[in-house]
C-alpha cells in the first residue's frame, strides 16, 4: 500500500557538517539505488535514497538544505517518521571492473552498491568528489570493502585537485573499466556520460517528487519518463535521449530551472 507507515529512528550519526545518517527497521527487500519517501509529520514528505542495507536495518544519509531536511536533522533516536517504499528501480551490476563516481551527498547512496559489488568479488574503483575535505564522508566504509578509493576536492585540500569527473577521465584512460555508476550533481554526471562512449553507464537522477507513484507528472524527464517509478536509475543510452539531462529540472510549480 503506497502510503506512509510509521517507524522509529533507531540510530543517527553525524557524518560531516550538515550530513547525517539515520536508520530504521527494514520493511523488506531493498535494492541499492532505490529510495523511500520520508514523511516528517506536519512538515513534508521527501525522497531519500538508501545508503545502508542490511537484512534488518535501512539507512538514509542526507544533507540539511531546507525545511524538511532541517526538521529531519533535529529528530532524535526514537522519534517517529513515516516511510513509504522502497520505491524506484535500483541499479543493476554488470562487468568485472567497475567505476563508481559519487559527488557530494550522492556519495551516500553509492555505498550499498559498492558493498554489493565487493561481495560479488568485482574489482571496484570508487571516486569520491567533494568541494573540500571536511565534507568527505563514508571514505572508511568504502575502504573496508576492499575497493580502491580515490578522493577529489575542488579546492585541493585532499586527494586530486579538481572535479570528480576529471579524475574519472584519468582512471578511464588508464584502466579497462566495464561499467560506470554515478550519483551526484547533474553536470558532473553529464560530463561522465560524455566520457563513457561505449561503456555501460547508470546514473541516479533527482527531480522534484510529489506522488512518487507515477501519476502526477511532477518528476518527468524526456518523453514522459517518470524518475519516481521508471527511475531514479537510468542507463546511458536512455540519458543520451533525454534533453533535460544536465540542462534543466522543474520546481514544485513545474517551472523549468536551468542547472
Amino acid at each position, binding site marked *: 500500500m*503506497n502510503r506512509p507507515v*510509521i517507524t522509529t529512528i533507531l540510530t543517527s550519526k553525524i557524518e560531516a557538517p550538515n550530513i547525517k545518517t539515520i536508520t530504521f527497521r527494514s520493511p523488506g527487500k531493498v535494492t541499492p539505488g532505490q529510495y523511500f519517501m520520508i514523511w516528517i509529520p506536519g512538515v513534508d514528505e521527501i525522497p531519500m535514497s538508501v545508503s545502508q542495507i542490511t537484512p534488518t536495518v535501512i539507512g538514509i544519509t542526507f544533507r540539511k538544505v531546507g525545511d524538511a531536511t532541517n526538521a529531519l536533522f533535529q529528530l532524535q533516536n526514537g522519534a517517529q517518521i*513515516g516511510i513509504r517504499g522502497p520505491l524506484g528501480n535500483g541499479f543493476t551490476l554488470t562487468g568485472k571492473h567497475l567505476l563508481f563516481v559519487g559527488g557530494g551527498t550522492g556519495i551516500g547512496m553509492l555505498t550499498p552498491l559498492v558493498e554489493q559489488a565487493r561481495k560479488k568479488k568485482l574489482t571496484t574503483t570508487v571516486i569520491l568528489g567533494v568541494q573540500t575535505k571536511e565534507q568527505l564522508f563514508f571514505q572508511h566504509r568504502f575502504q573496508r570493502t576492499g575497493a580502491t578509493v580515490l578522493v577529489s576536492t575542488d579546492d585541493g585540500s585532499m586527494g586530486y585537485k579538481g572535479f570528480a569527473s576529471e579524475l574519472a577521465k584519468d582512471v578511464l584512460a588508464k584502466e579497462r573499466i566495464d561499467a560506470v555508476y554515478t550519483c551526484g550533481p547533474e553536470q558532473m554526471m553529464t560530463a561522465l556520460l560524455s566520457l563513457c562512449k561505449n561503456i555501460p553507464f547508470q546514473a541516479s537522477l533527482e527531480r522534484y517528487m*510529489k*506522488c512518487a*507513484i507515477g501519476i502526477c*507528472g511532477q518528476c518527468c524527464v524526456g518523453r514522459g519518463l517518470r524518475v519516481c517509478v521508471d527511475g531514479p536509475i537510468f542507463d546511458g543510452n536512455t540519458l543520451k535521449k533525454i534533453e533535460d539531462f544536465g540542462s534543466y529540472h522543474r520546481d514544485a*510549480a513545474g517551472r523549468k530551472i536551468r542547472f
Partner: protein
Amino acid sequence: MVDIRTTIGSLSLQNPTMLASGIMDEDAGSMHRMIDSGAGAIVTKSIGTHPREGYANPTVIELDHGLLNAMGLPNPGIDQYGEEIKKIKTTKVPLIGSIYAADAPEFTLLAQKMQHYGVSAVELNVSCPHAKHYGLEVGSDPVLLHDIIRNVKNHITLPVFVKVSPNIMNLSEIVQTIEDAGANGIVAINTVKAMAIDLQTKRPILANKTGGYSGKAIKPIGIRCVYDIAQTVDIPIIGVGGITTGLDAIEYLMAGASAVQIGSAVYYRGPEVFHLICQEIRTWMKKNKYTTITEIIGASFQ
C-alpha cells in the same frame, strides 16, 4: 469489425479513452507518452494565470480502494505552460486545455490563451475539492458559473466543457445552468472530498488534511452522476471516476457518457492502460455484437 471512434459534439476521437486532467500532463514529454500509450484525447493539468507550487507533501496516498490527493493545483502559470502546449504535435489526438480561476475575467483570459496556443477545446475546472477560492467553490454557485461560461463562450470559438463535482447537492440545477449558459459538454466527476488519518500520529496524512478521492471506489458515484446528468441535459457528457477496465468504461457509456477520462488507473495498470482499455472495449463489443460506440451510449435508459 468494431469501430470504437466517438465524438463529443464537434470533436472526433479515435477512441473514447481520454487522459484525465492532472495525470501525467505537466509537460509536453509526458503528454506525448500518454498519446503513445493510446489515449484518444489529452486533457492538460488545470492551469491558472500565475505559477502555483501546490501543497506540501504528502500530496497523494494510496488507500484500500482508491487514491487520495491534495495536489493544490500546482502549475507553472499559463504563459510558461503555453510553451509545453506548442510542443505537442498531434493531428488525431485532440488536446483539451483545463483551466481554473476564481471569476469570469480570469477564466476568459485563460481560455483565450489556450485557444491561442492551439488546443482543440477547453475544460473549466470548477470542481477541485481542495483549493480555496477555486474549483468547487465556483462550481456550486449557479450565478457565478453562468457568468463564467457566458463570458468564456463569448470570447472563444472552441468547444467549452465544464467539469463538475459529485460534492454538490444541487447537481441538476448546476448542470442545467451549464447547458443554458452555452457550454458544449459536461465532464463528470472530479474527485470526492475525503480524508485519511494516521492512527499512530493521530494526524490527517495529507499535508492539506482534506483531499479528493479517486479510483475504483468512486465509480458508482460517477456512474450515478453521469446517469442523472444525462436525464437533465442534452449536451454530451464525458464520464470520469474509477475507470480501470474496459467494462468500467462501457458502464459509463451506458450511463450516457460519449467518452471517458482515465486518471488513477494510470497508477493501477501503468501508462499502457489506454491501449488495454480500448482492447477490452473491442473484445466486449465483439462478444456482445455491438459495432459502434453510439449503440452503447445511453443504453441504460429504458
